């Protein structure tokens, strides 16, 4: 299937500067620099580009907020923390298509009027760090960043910051803290980074995949871009499939492609040919979908209407033989461990949910135990500095709704029905 980021399918191996130029590389930058920065914002707005880090926020809107903030200097931050379990898309982009990403960074920095861009890259991604470091040197030698880029008045400095690899370190404001030399702890919002961000200055923080979409939009135009995807989610998205399918990997698909196509045609179906019990479209924090929702289109609105979310595209399948109680306990324990601990409500919620699930797992209680989950989640709704507090809720509440028999079996026997 034709893609935007990978026009001939996911490439194996790194694309160097010569190869990238041969397919139009850095022409989007030249084109952008010939026009006003606002024109780039307008084109990306017309294309309807939405953030690929999970929230799906309109990129041009984020840029406009940053541009319009009165304070100077402004910063662009590329978020390549990628700490979602099972997500490999940003790593692959940085390893194999570093110039596509870097061109996106430079054009985006021009759009918001940034003086400096920071590339925040997961420190575990050694190959990605090397690929991006090498590509930055190549691009600088070619005059694509530095002083007076391509003879224009625009100058940009770029620096790489290795990112710690715990979950919260990928949260936008925790990213800013790390770049400032501090611990990866999310900040209270508001103020939002678009007005008070890095070093207190207006900052646009964009995901790697989001930035990789910018050069193709500028080069080919928003009308071309909108030929992919749906009206509200234009373009393509990279989905990550893991070893619960026959062909794990990453797949670039137009938004709106049925989930079934990703699972069956790309992934080759459930590993071992087993039956699907549940689908988690945005692991590990989305609601489970029952198997009859397998034809749901992969776009933000459709997934929301189906009762789940698209997130950053890590699709996880639960096999029929798997007990959902054990699954959600693993998820709950993950968030308990990954909660940074600075917000009391988050500590209370994540710990309590895990305690409740362990009680269920061991059959220590009855129906009243199950009624506590919703109350604890509701009590903590909207609290905390970051969104982690909202993450265990959808998996747990959807599991309770869709698979009450698994919970009942644990409560009745203290044993897992799957074993």
């Amino acid at each position, binding site marked *: 299937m034709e893609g935007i980021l990978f026009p001939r399918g996911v490439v194996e191996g790194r694309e160097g500067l010569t190869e990238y130029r041969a397919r139009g590389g850095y022409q989007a930058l030249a084109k952008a620099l010939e026009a006003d920065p606002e024109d780039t914002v307008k084109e990306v707005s017309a294309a309807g580009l939405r953030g690929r880090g999970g929230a799906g926020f309109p990129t041009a809107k984020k840029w406009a907020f940053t541009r319009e903030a009165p304070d100077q200097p402004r910063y662009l931050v590329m978020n390549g923390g990628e700490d979602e379990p099972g997500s490999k898309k940003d790593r692959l982009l940085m390893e194999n298509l570093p110039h596509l990403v870097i061109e996106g960074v430079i054009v985006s920095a021009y759009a918001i009027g940034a003086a400096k861009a920071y590339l925040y890259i997961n420190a575990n991604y050694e190959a990605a760090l090397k690929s991006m470091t090498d590509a930055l040197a190549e691009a600088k030698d070619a005059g694509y960043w530095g002083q007076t880029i391509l003879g224009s008045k625009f100058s940009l400095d770029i620096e790489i910051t290795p990112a710690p690899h715990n979950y919260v370190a990928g949260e936008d404001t925790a990213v800013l803290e790390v770049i400032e030399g501090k611990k990866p702890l999310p900040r209270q919002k508001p103020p939002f980074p678009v007005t008070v961000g890095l070093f207190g200055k207006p900052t646009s923080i964009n995901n790697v995949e989001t930035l990789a979409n910018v050069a193709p939009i500028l080069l080919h135009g928003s009308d071309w871009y909108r030929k992919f995807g749906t009206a509200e989610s234009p373009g393509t998205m990279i989905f990550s499939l893991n070893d619960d399918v026959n062909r794990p990997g990453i797949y670039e698909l137009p938004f709106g492609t049925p989930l079934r196509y990703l699972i069956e045609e790309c992934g080759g179906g459930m590993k071992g040919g087993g039956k699907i019990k549940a689908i988690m479209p945005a692991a590990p924090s989305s609601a489970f979908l029952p198997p009859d929702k397998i034809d749901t289109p992969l776009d933000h609105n459709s997934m929301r209407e189906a009762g789940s979310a698209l997130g950053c595209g890590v699709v996880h399948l639960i096999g029929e033989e798997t007990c959902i109680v054990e699954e959600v306990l693993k998820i709950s324990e993950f968030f308990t461990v990954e909660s940074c*601990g600075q917000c*009391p*409500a988050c*500590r*209370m*919620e994540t*710990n*309590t949910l895990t*305690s*409740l699930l362990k*009680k269920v797992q061991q059959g*220590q*209680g009855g129906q*009243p*135990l199950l*009624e*506590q989950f919703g*109350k*604890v989640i509701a*009590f*903590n709704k909207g609290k905390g500095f970051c969104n982690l507090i909202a993450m265990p809720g959808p998996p747990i509440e959807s599991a309770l709704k869709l698979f009450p028999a698994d919970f009942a079996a644990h409560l009745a026997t203290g044993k897992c029905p799957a074993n």
Partner: protein
Amino acid sequence: MKRLCLICQNVDCKNRGSEQLMAELQKRVEARALADDVEVKSYMCFGACQEGPNVVLYPEKNWYAGVKVEDLDEITDHLAGGPHVQRLDTIDPSLKELIYQLLDTGVF
């Protein structure tokens, strides 16, 4: 089952002295020969850190907030059958209900 005297030991409450509070309360419970009836026990978090340290008596369901060492004699009196310490009873009823239900389901 012994009656429980639960003291939150999460980060905020520890910063407000809940470890010392727990040790001091344990001493008083022993000094008043209540230890056979009352267990002083740490609790992960009652979700009321801003009003901590918190002490919850269970199963009688009394919640004392913002407890200081100088309040412990009155709380010990209460454990020994004395009056409820009204001035420390400041927690929102909806939070009390949530936590009491959790305790009723055995989440300690």
